[in-house]
């Protein structure tokens, strides 16, 4: 292995920056193929140039520990392009190729520069390990980035699929449909509390007719939401509790004794109207 202080990589990159950059961009364009339209050649060139400069800088430390301080700027850069390429529609492999395709031009240059067999092999090996690590880092960051995007999209979908409905002045309804998981329930509940403030509702009906099962976590979230709504000055009514859910709740030991529950949304609505001081009467016919 090349001792840290004597790797020729930074010197090589400094002396032959131009040609290495050219060859590298060529390599990338060759491998991108049909995805060429996703990013302009100029943009690709600029990213490559910047990456080379950052690598040259960091390589002065001579180390191969890319998690260490000298490589922070390089890691940040890879994090950024990973994110932007994901958004542009590149696959993780394609994004990693950005880094891996740098090997060829550097190896070629090392061979051209010659020198003793042993020395050249050590340099090639050093560069090989370095680029492998950087390339793998890129895939890691890409994966984490994708997870983040997926999570966000899920959140947005959740908000859309569980609208808070205004039934009357001061009365909101939240019809929940499908299986509830902890994350979904949390998001939806926060949205409900926000709507309570926005509309000045003093009663919120949470209807779970469309929910087949409820587990402890979800029941706890429901209770927390009801308590939070009360602190804000609004009351919650849970409606549409199916017999199966009722028995699950009892078996889970969740205490709903302080929570108002109604079998149907209609009953809940009637109670809500009472709460806000309204009554429904028959229209008087004018003759």
């Amino acid at each position, binding site marked *: 292995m090349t001792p840290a202080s004597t790797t020729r990589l930074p010197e090589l990159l400094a002396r032959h920056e131009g040609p290495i950059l050219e060859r590298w961009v060529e390599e990338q364009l060759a491998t991108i193929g049909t995805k060429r339209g996703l990013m302009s050649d100029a943009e690709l060139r600029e990213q490559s140039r910047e990456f080379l400069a950052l690598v040259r800088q960091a390589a002065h430390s001579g180390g191969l520990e890319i998690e260490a301080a000298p490589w922070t700027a390089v890691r940040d850069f890879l*994090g950024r392009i990973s994110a932007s390429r994901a958004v542009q529609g590149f696959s993780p492999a394609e994004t990693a190729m950005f880094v891996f395709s740098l090997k060829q031009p550097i190896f070629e240059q090392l061979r051209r520069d010659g020198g003793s067999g042993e020395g050249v092999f050590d340099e090639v090996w050093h560069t090989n390990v370095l680029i492998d690590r950087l390339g793998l880092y890129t895939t*890691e*960051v890409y994966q*984490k980035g994708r997870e*983040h995007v997926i999570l966000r999209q899920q959140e947005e979908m959740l908000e859309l699929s569980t609208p808070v409905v205004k039934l009357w002045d001061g009365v909101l309804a939240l019809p929940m449909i499908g299986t509830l998981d902890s994350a979904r329930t949390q998001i939806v509940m926060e949205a409900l509390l926000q709507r309570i403030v926005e509309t000045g509702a003093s009663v919120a009906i949470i209807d779970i007719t469309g929910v087949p099962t409820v587990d402890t976590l979800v029941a706890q979230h429901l209770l927390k939401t009801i308590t939070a709504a009360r602190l804000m000055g609004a009351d919650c009514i849970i409606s549409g509790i199916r017999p199966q859910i009722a028995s699950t709740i009892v078996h889970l030991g969740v205490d709903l004794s302080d929570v108002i529950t109604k079998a149907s949304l209609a009953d809940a609505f009637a109670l809500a109207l009472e709460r806000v001081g309204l009554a429904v009467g028959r229209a008087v016919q004018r003759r």
Partner: protein
Amino acid sequence: MPASRSEELPLRAGADVVKVRQVVRTWAAEIGFSLVDQTKLVTGASELARNTLDHGRGGSVRLVMLEDGARRGLGMTFEDSGPGIADVNLALTDGYTTGNGLGLGLSGTRRLMTEFRIDSQPGQGTRVYCARWR
């Protein structure tokens, strides 16, 4: 973006607790936390800052911006060289009180964070680390 990735603030007086709340709020907003998560961070910071001041007889807090790939977070370390906590596990149980009404509020604060660690020995001060991730 916060100007630096780490900042240390003193906790020597009541006004310092207010300052810590404000700085944590600013950082949390810049890191991009939701309003609810910001509030949890600020509230937790307020509780721990008060502990450091009242029980720990003054100390400091270090805020750190956390990064893990694309994930971001905020970490806070509260440190004092006060009397320390004799039984940390006991202090972390709900309802535990040292006699002035509400106890150290540690168990509640822990629920507001995704990471929470206490290092404390009697006579050797206390260090509390907590963090939330986006």
